[in-house]
Every structure is written in C-alpha cells, then in structure tokens.
C-alpha cells in the first residue's frame, strides 16, 4: 500500500507540473504541432535531457535502486505495426490536443470535453485488446 501511495504522490506531482507548464492547454499543443509556439517542445526536450542525465547519475552510483537491488531498464521494442500505431496516436494527439497523460490533467482542471477524450481512449484501449485476440501481429 505504501508503494501505491507513493505512485499517487508521483501522479499528483506529474499532474500538477503538466498543468502548471501549460501542457494541458489545447492551444499550446496545437501551436506546437503548427510550429507557431515551441514552448511544449522545449518542455519535452528538457525532460528528455534531464531524464537522461538522471539515469546516467544512477548508473555512475552503481545502478542500484533504493532497496539496494540493481536497476533493470525496461527496453522499449517495436512491434510489427508499431509505426502504424504511432501514426494513429499522432493523429489523435493533434486532434484531441491531449495525450494519455495530459488528458488526465485536463480532467483535473475541470475541462468537461476531456472526459470524452478519456472515454475514447478507454474504448480505443479495449479495441486493442479485442483486436489482439484475433490478430496477434498488432502487439505493441
């Protein structure tokens, strides 16, 4: 339970920061994609660099977690149709002006329309599970 409460705290932090930095604002996301305002692109790029430096630091310190066990980095792989999945995702991101993280921030901020984005995401996730049962090649 402590572990889950810790993730609740991490989530609180993430949602708070996403909201404060404007990542949950439809206009900000739209203008990133039209290259009119790269604010959000800089946020993502900075996050990548800081995350990379943090992982390097952990590695330099012996690659151990707080419990003293070695850290195992979860390797992201490509499924056969992952590029197609990424294209579908990109269209959704541009359309809805949200991604799976920022839609949660939009909901927290009280944006009612984000509830429809979330509902679509849940149905889309279910659809994946359904398709996967009939067509294992789409595994991500």
């Amino acid at each position, binding site marked *: 339970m402590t572990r889950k409460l810790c993730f609740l705290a991490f989530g609180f*932090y993430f949602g708070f920061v996403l909201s404060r930095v404007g990542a949950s604002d439809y206009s900000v996301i739209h203008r990133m994609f039209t290259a009119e305002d790269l604010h959000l692109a800089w946020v993502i790029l900075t996050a990548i660099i800081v995350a990379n430096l943090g992982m390097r630091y952990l590695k330099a310190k012996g690659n151990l977690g707080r419990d003293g066990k070695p850290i195992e980095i979860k390797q992201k792989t490509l499924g056969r149709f992952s590029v197609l999945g990424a294209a579908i995702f990109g269209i959704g991101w541009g359309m809805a002006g949200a991604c799976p993280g920022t839609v949660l921030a939009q909901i927290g901020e009280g944006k009612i329309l984000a509830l429809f984005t979330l509902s679509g995401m849940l149905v889309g996730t279910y659809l994946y599970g359904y398709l996967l049962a009939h067509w294992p090649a789409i595994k991500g």
Partner: protein
Amino acid sequence: MYQALFVNTWPWWAGGILIGLLVPAFYYFHNTALGVSTGYGNLVKIISRSKLPWLQGETFADTWGWRVFFIGGMVLGAFVAGRLRGGPVLTGEMTLFTEVLNWPFLGYAIYFFSGGLFLGLGARIAGGCTSGHSIHGIANLHKSSIIVTIIFLIFGAIAAAFLRSYLLGGGGL
C-alpha cells in the same frame, strides 16, 4: 510570488526539469519505467470486467495496480493546480478549439471521443505514449522510441495542419 508559482504558466525549463526527474525517480524508488497509457488497460479491466486474454496477462494481474494510483494522482494534482490558479471548477472550454468553433455540445463530444479513440488504440499498438516512449524511451536511448516519437510528431503536425486548414481557420490565431 504566488502569481509566478500558481497562476502564470511556468517557463519551459522549469516544467522540463521537474518532469524529467520522474524517470530516474521511478527507477530509483520502484525499479520501473515511467508510463501512463498502459494504466488505461487497468481502467478498462476495472470498468468492463472484461475477460479479454490481454487483460488477464501479467501486466494487469493486479487490477488495482500502481498505474491506477498514478493516474488518479495526476487528476488530483491538476485539480489542485487548477484550484490554486482560480477560475471555474468545471468548464466546457477547450481554449482555441471552442473559441473558434461554435459547435453544438454533441459535436464537440463526438470529436474529442474520436481523438481519444485514436490515442487509445494507437498508444497500445505503438507500445507506449508520450511519457513512456518520448520521455522515458528516448532518455534511455531506445531506437524504437526515437522512431515512434518522430512518427507521433509527423502525424500530429499533419492533423494540426489539416485542422487549421479546414476547421480552425488560417492565420491570425
């Protein structure tokens, strides 16, 4: 001070640094990768009580797993951010989109639902979303994440350009 912290939009570097720290923090404290979209599988399992084989697998063995708490925390965090900033608790607005288009509510609902459908299906086939691939994956120099992120951005830009041309009006915004 209050204005800078809780009302004005933070500078990009502040948000970037604070978000980036989550990746090493996840590994250090819990030996796991930062990621949001997999948790939607937990939500689907909770809501639909689905017997889909995919949801019976190892990832979702703990139905009320940490991902559900992470997602719940995100909503709460943004709620508090919204309250501190002030303004309405509930709003039908979606900035640019609702400012430019004067659609009936049902039209908005269908539009955002469709966008969400693409996001949910696409994230699973792609094997992750912005946090898992674009931030966690690229930070760990995973080639797959770099490829997937480039495709995310290209198609996001295509969708936005299409929207601007046909719905949101050209220029002046």
